[in-house]
């Protein structure tokens, strides 16, 4: 974690070379790690993600965006009736709008990432997320899986999977079950 603070989301040329090698390895089903200077691409990408998450959690959206490509692609799966900002986003500006919306609704964001796995140009994180609502101070707590793809040392793709049923209940602060039952009666 401490080392991650010194990571900046720049684009070392060696990582591009390593990326090509990793893709070749992946095609062969290999799991070998690739060195760029003193550090493997996997370790470097893992630290970049930790850096991105730390930046976002302290509200530094621009530092988090600096870790992404201009055409970064974001996709999550959640009902947009309740979470209209969670629609697909393409490009830094759209991602900036999404992250600003999130920060306009929550005053505190924390993550714990018990599992971070990196291979080649991809990183997967399993996270416990805690978002504190600005409106009433209640904590929305949920687990999420986020898969990142890198291009040239920057995040080019973000894919999230969330236990969305539970998330919606926490956002609405009510059980969904009665809504289903009522609709059946109607």
């Amino acid at each position: 974690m401490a080392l991650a603070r010194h990571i900046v989301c720049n684009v070392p040329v060696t990582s591009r070379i390593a990326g090509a090698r990793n893709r070749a390895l992946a095609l062969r089903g290999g799991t070998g790690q690739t060195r760029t200077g003193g550090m493997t691409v996997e370790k470097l990408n893992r630290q970049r993600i930790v850096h991105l998450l730390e930046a976002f959690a302290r509200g530094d959206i621009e530092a988090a965006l600096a870790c992404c490509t201009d055409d970064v692609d974001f996709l999550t799966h959640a009902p947009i009736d309740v979470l209209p900002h969670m629609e697909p986003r393409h490009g830094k500006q759209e991602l900036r709008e999404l992250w600003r919306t999130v920060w306009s609704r929550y005053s505190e964001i924390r993550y714990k990432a018990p599992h971070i796995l990196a291979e080649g140009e991809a990183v997967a994180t399993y996270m416990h997320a805690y978002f504190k609502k600005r409106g009433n101070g209640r904590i929305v707590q949920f687990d999420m899986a986020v898969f990142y793809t890198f291009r040239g040392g920057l995040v080019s793709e973000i894919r999230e999977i969330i236990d969305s049923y539970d998330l919606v209940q926490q956002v609405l602060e009510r059980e969904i079950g009665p809504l289903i039952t009522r609709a059946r009666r109607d």
Partner: protein
Amino acid sequence: MTEHSLWRFSRALHRAINDRQFEDIEALIDEDVEWALYGPIDMFPFLGARQGKEAVLDVIRQLADNFHVRRFDRESIMLGIDSAASMLRYSLTALDSNKPISLRVAQFAQFRAGKLASMRVLIDTFDLVEQALGRAIHLPKMTSIG
């Protein structure tokens, strides 16, 4: 090159669910396995957290009782020495209704001596519930809350 534990486990899991052959999967689960498949357990009793091989085998038997895997595609996969993470798209058939169900799933697995020691699975559960119901859930529009 030795085959990664994930591939053996994955083959055995699908054989268990589709063909009800549980011998292979039994041999690939650690006695102290930790297992969590998050989602609404009141609607899907096989979801939730489990501890230990017998409890996990029971979940797998329930999955076999309820679903048939028609197809699955790994959209993303990362392999560590004793761990694996993947994002998959599953096409299932619910056996009671013969309804098709399509799921996005994230899977984080850890292995010990080739056996599954930990599995955490996240599913887009709201979508799963709507598909199981066969209709949309009408939620109140709340544009400023979450």
